């Protein structure tokens, strides 16, 4: 299974993904620049990503907690998600996301 991640410089990487891992953990463990400072507690909004249009409806919709945290992100769009709230499964093989800008 793989996930395609475009970094903030526009370079796309194909990362091996493991079932049961959070998308945030996959991106972080492959060394891409994602701060994820709360470690996945949905408390900081520093793992903000944009999900490719054809994948948006295949993900479970964001819960209220995730929407509230997205309030602390910048340039939030309809396809914005927090990577820590996306649990990887075989159905997500090929998921394509772009890293959102990081607040300083």
């Amino acid at each position, binding site marked *: 299974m793989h996930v395609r991640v475009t970094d903030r410089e526009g370079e796309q990487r194909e990362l091996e993904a493991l079932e049961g891992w959070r998308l945030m953990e996959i991106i972080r463990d492959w060394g891409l620049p994602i701060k994820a400072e709360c470690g996945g507690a949905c408390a900081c909004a*520093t793992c903000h990503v944009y999900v490719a249009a054809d994948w948006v409806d295949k993900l479970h919709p964001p819960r209220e907690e995730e929407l509230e945290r997205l309030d*602390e992100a910048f340039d939030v769009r309809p396809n914005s998600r927090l990577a820590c709230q996306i649990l990887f499964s075989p159905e997500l093989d090929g998921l394509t996301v772009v890293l959102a800008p990081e607040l300083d």
Partner: protein
Amino acid sequence: MTQGVAMTQGMAMTNDNIITTDVVIVGAGPCGLFAVFELGLLDIKAHLVDILPKVGGQCAELYPEKPIYDIPGFPIVTGQGLVDNLVEQIKPFGPTFHLNQMIEALEPIGTADAPRFRVTTDAGTVFETKTVIVAAGGGSFQPKKPPIPGIDAYEGNSVFYAVRKMEAFRGRDILIVGGGDSALDWTLNLQPIARRVTLMHRRDDFRAAPHSVEQMRALVASGQMDMKLGQVTGLKGEGSALQAAICRDNAGETFEIACDTLLPFFGLTMKLGPIADWGLNLNENLIPADTEKFETSTPGIFAIGDINTYPGKLKLILSGFHEAALAAQKVHRYVYPDKRLTFQYTTSSTSLQKKLGVA
């Protein structure tokens, strides 16, 4: 104030009031709190400094209600529950907390064998201490700065991430951005003295206290302030004088809001802050420490918890507890160079139990 725990909240002190102590702990998160316990068993009292207005660090700030499953002896405990228990556990040792303060300067004034440091906070508190334990986790919590192009030029004159003196905003055209308590609180506080306040949030749901949201909506309904849905994408002005914010609504349309002041409230993020200027060796914003005593490259300065790095480091709270215990042993040698240190267990030592107030 709880018994056995003293607190100061950003109180300014003059240099005539230098606090002389054996150890200053930087950070009042779980590792800093547990260091008080390990030091206390060795008759060393601690002063703790934290930038947040409350103790507990990330546990209390980021995930107070989240369950933690890997604390020994607690099959499950919340972030705040762990902090509350640590505060209870260290009460016998009477630590002093200096909250709402950040250590700005650390100056060595001793020798390698007999270290001593002058430590100054941004609230003017000055310590002279034999040792420093850095337990700063991911660094200092500081306001997030939105990556709006050119925003730096306006900071300090037109753009502010915190309100220090309300009077400075009298008569201004203020745009406040955010949907949490900070955004709503400052909207309500500044509305009576500003020329006009506009609150902008990306959606029509607010996570602030419901009473504040109701008050804000009433002010909008009576025409006393404005509320807009959207996000700021750019700024217009001359030099450091802001004239307008360029915004985008949820349909993607661009519009402008005339304003001379922008207050973005996007929550807090962790930054290393002034620790970077203390002359310690750093490795990608982490402080290398040895694994025998968790001392840094500067004798007398220790680093425990998530802020340190060494081969095999695991960023776990329990690692920080272990590191606190070992650091305390070496701190004892600096504080009591002529005293022999005999290791004792709390289960069997009457001396330790007396210190804990249970014997």
